[in-house]
């Protein structure tokens, strides 16, 4: 397993990551003609069985018999937004420790038993979701469920594993300062979101992780990992009735508290005016650039117009930004725009990079392109193209069982309409050019964008002069 790249993709668009992105990786694209995407109209999702177990855990089971695989995915409504002040990183560290000792097994035994059946078992904490996932061959359903249940319900948090993971996490935070793109993504949260609980990276800061104790982890688990705050999906080559019975037995002992989880954070006010942050990285010859504003929450009434508008601006390979900044001007290998949408707030960011010499040119050209689209609006052909791209790509994200599980759980987690997946294409098709114009004017800021670069501070300062107040910082 390794870090070595296999292919050198022409277009790997670099994903923007603010805190932890939970936005469905939407595909994107387009359209041209007037016919609705035929393929999506034929899309039929396998029937989902939904139930609430006696313990209060809501489950959804979807049979997909194409391959002898089964995927479990449990999402808990807890994340770095629940980190206490000064202990940023607690949710993530708690998630990391779930698999490091649980039930009757040590960390080594868990790793060994899941690998022995060729399966995977992972746990991770994002901004507002803590996710535990397990994938096994269908014949290994039993061991998969047992391990999943144990790490969720009865992790043992051995002291020596706590100390090891804590040290590893601090090392990982330090090592992240080697990578310019990671530095940019981690620094953007606080720069854009200020003191919001959404602002800090899920992994935390060196100092705050060092301040976490094993008791904090035990308490976080007891408080937040409760059946009435969680959703479980089981997708794969399974029989729903048998699975439901197995889940009922497995989770019978999981006790929950009475209260529903409250929202840990509020909407974040929009930025005003340009502000520039230069994060020092004197040795680079290419500058990472992030341009960002406050966006919208996931359950926003203009979700579909925003998706279409964003596809036109900065998703896919024919977007305005790719066309101008990459294709026409050769300034970058990748440029994209993206809305990061959470339960109560969101971000909107443009991500790119260019050689140090063309930093200002790239930012100016990017602003000009966004302004032009906002002021003049898209062409009908562009709107059509974006709609076709979005609806054409949508089924691809539902083919793999783990992808389907994630999509179904997002629908429940964000409280979307029950037919959301099925109706996606129809709702995209219903977006009009007026909707797109309105979305562009309402949610695609330019003059209030935060400008963050990771670069040589001297050359960057000279290049960015005049854009707004400039602050220079070390990577954290």
């Amino acid at each position, binding site marked *: 397993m390794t870090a*070595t790249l296999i292919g050198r993709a022409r277009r790997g668009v670099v994903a923007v990551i603010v805190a932890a992105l939970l936005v469905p990786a939407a595909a994107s694209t387009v359209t041209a003609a007037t016919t609705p995407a035929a393929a999506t109209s034929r899309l039929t999702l396998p029937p989902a069985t939904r139930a609430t177990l006696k313990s209060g855990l809501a489950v959804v089971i979807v049979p997909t018999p194409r391959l002898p695989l089964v995927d479990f995915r449990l999402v808990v409504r807890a994340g770095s937004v629940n980190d206490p002040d000064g202990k940023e990183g607690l949710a993530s560290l708690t998630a990391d420790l779930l698999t490091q000792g649980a039930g009757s097994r040590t960390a080594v035994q868990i790793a060994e038993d899941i690998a022995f059946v060729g399966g995977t078992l992972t746990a991770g904490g994002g901004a507002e979701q803590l996710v535990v996932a397990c994938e096994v061959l269908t014949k290994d359903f039993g061991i998969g469920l047992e391990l999943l249940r144990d790490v969720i319900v009865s992790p043992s948090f051995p002291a020596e594993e706590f100390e090891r993971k804590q040290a590893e996490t601090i090392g990982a935070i330090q090592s992240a300062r080697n990578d310019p793109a990671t530095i940019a993504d981690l620094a953007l949260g606080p720069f854009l979101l200020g003191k919001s609980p959404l602002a800090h990276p899920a992994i935390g800061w060196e100092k705050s992780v060092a301040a976490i104790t094993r008791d904090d982890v035990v308490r976080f688990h007891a408080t937040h990992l409760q059946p009435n705050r969680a959703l479980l999906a089981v997708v794969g080559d399974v029989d729903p009735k048998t699975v439901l019975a197995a889940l009922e037995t497995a989770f019978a002992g999981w006790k929950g508290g009475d209260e529903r989880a409250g929202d840990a954070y509020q909407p974040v006010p929009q930025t005003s005016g340009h502000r520039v942050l230069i994060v020092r990285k004197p040795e680079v010859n290419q500058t990472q650039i992030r341009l960002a504003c406050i966006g919208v929450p996931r359950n926003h009434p203009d979700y579909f117009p925003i998706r279409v508008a964003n596809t036109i601006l900065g998703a896919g390979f024919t977007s305005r930004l790719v066309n101008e900044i990459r294709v026409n001007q050769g300034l970058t290998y990748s440029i994209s725009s993206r809305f990061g949408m959470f339960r109560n707030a969101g971000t909107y960011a443009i991500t790119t990079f260019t050689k140090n010499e063309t930093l200002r040119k790239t930012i100016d050209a990017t602003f000009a392109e966004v302004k032009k689209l906002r002021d003049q609006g898209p062409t009908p052909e562009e709107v059509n193209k974006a709609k076709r791209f979005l609806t054409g790509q949508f089924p691809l994200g539902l083919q793999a069982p783990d992808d389907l599980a994630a999509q179904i759980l997002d629908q429940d987690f964000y409280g979307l309409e029950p037919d959301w997946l099925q109706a996606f294409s129809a709702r995209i098709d219903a977006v009009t050019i007026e909707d797109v114009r309105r979305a562009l004017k309402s949610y695609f800021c330019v003059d209030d964008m935060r400008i963050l670069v990771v670069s040589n501070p001297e050359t960057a300062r000279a290049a960015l002069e005049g854009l707004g107040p400039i602050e220079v910082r070390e990577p954290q």
Partner: protein
Amino acid sequence: MHRIPALLALLLAVAAAAPAAAAPKARPAPARSSAALTPAAFKVERQTLPNGLVVLMHEDHSVPTVTFWQWFKVGSRNERPGITGISHYFEHMMFNGSKNVAPKEYDRIIESSGGYSNAFTDYDMTAYYEDIASDRLEVLFRLDADRMAGLTLDPAVLKSEIEVVKEERRLRTENDISGMLDEQLYAAAFVSSPYGWPTVGWMGDLERMKREELVEYFRTYYAPNNCILVLTGDFDSKTVLAQITRHFGPIPAQPAPARPVNSEPVQNGERRVEVRYPAENVSFQVGYKAPAVGDADVPVLDILDSILGDGESSRLHRALVYEKQIALGVGSFFATRLEPTLFEFVVEMKPGHTAAAGDSALSEVLERLAKEGPTPRELQKAKNLVEAGFVKSLKTNNGVGQQIGFFEHVYGDHREMFRLLDRYRTVTAADCQRVARAIFRPERRTIAVLVPVGEDGAGATPP
């Protein structure tokens, strides 16, 4: 990770008895009888057009989409000094204008049809794919046949696109520590093999490449007889073959390209290279000379790769990350390739720990495996991981097409993916021990170490 692990048949309930029985406290599995992943059930139709173009088709009607892969048998292996990176440059230029499709039109038409296209380049291949709704498939044949028939290579577009490629090189290599080490590892390990230069190309070559060189390269390597088409998903083979014949059939074959020159001598001593660059911690990569596809020991190397580097229960993770706690991460990597290659290890140390400590821990693990071989359970675990990995690689049409194309090109026959699984099943502990001894020899290894320095290049900490 193994590029392509293996197989399927085993996954059927019966064959899987061993792992299931060993799983502790397993509950009864609520399995349905799933579609059999056996050579007989996994149908691939293979046709060759008169111009030499190979077409492989695997129907799967579970989702109304199709993936269309085009595997060109050309990669940086086919280059020579002076034009390094030209294969990858083509990967970009193939989207930038052909005889009847103006620059920008290719992407516009595909996205307007709800499709997505991308590609990758490696030492041995350049592979392009499109994912699209079933009823739009023929649009792709028109576009892709047009670019195979003749690229425009417009001088203005060439000039702009090379800047994009240079930004890609800056992103992946010049400002990325693992990219720097990877490039230096291969450059130091190989003195004649074409694997000695990077797929993205040296910056100097990107700056000097000439249009005539591109024209010649295209004629030689982008011919129909140097390409494999793979279709997977929701389509009708008969209809599609007729369409492909109509669009691609008229493109003339070219003389078969010459085999690349590779006079790599035997390595008789460790090679060591340092990269001094500002960093928070030490990292290093180690490569041992390893055989090419066709060597009988390649499947054993895949199994060793799993034992050593797959997951938290692997030997390297256990030793360096879990027990000694000196590394943040460690991995092994072995890919089946057309030329003799490297069996690689990548180690990122915890801040404060030296490369020497990491290297000695790595060597200890390798020596022990060579001396004692794997335990029976460890060997079975590796086989189970490799087999399950293969099933997982088939989750999407795209993944299925990638496997078929890879085996057809690298192994010379897509059916080898099933034979490879059979071969994995016969690997013994003695095989693992023998091959570990033969491959992990100190005189056949190369190490590339990142030596952290201050911003001004001074103040190196001891590696």
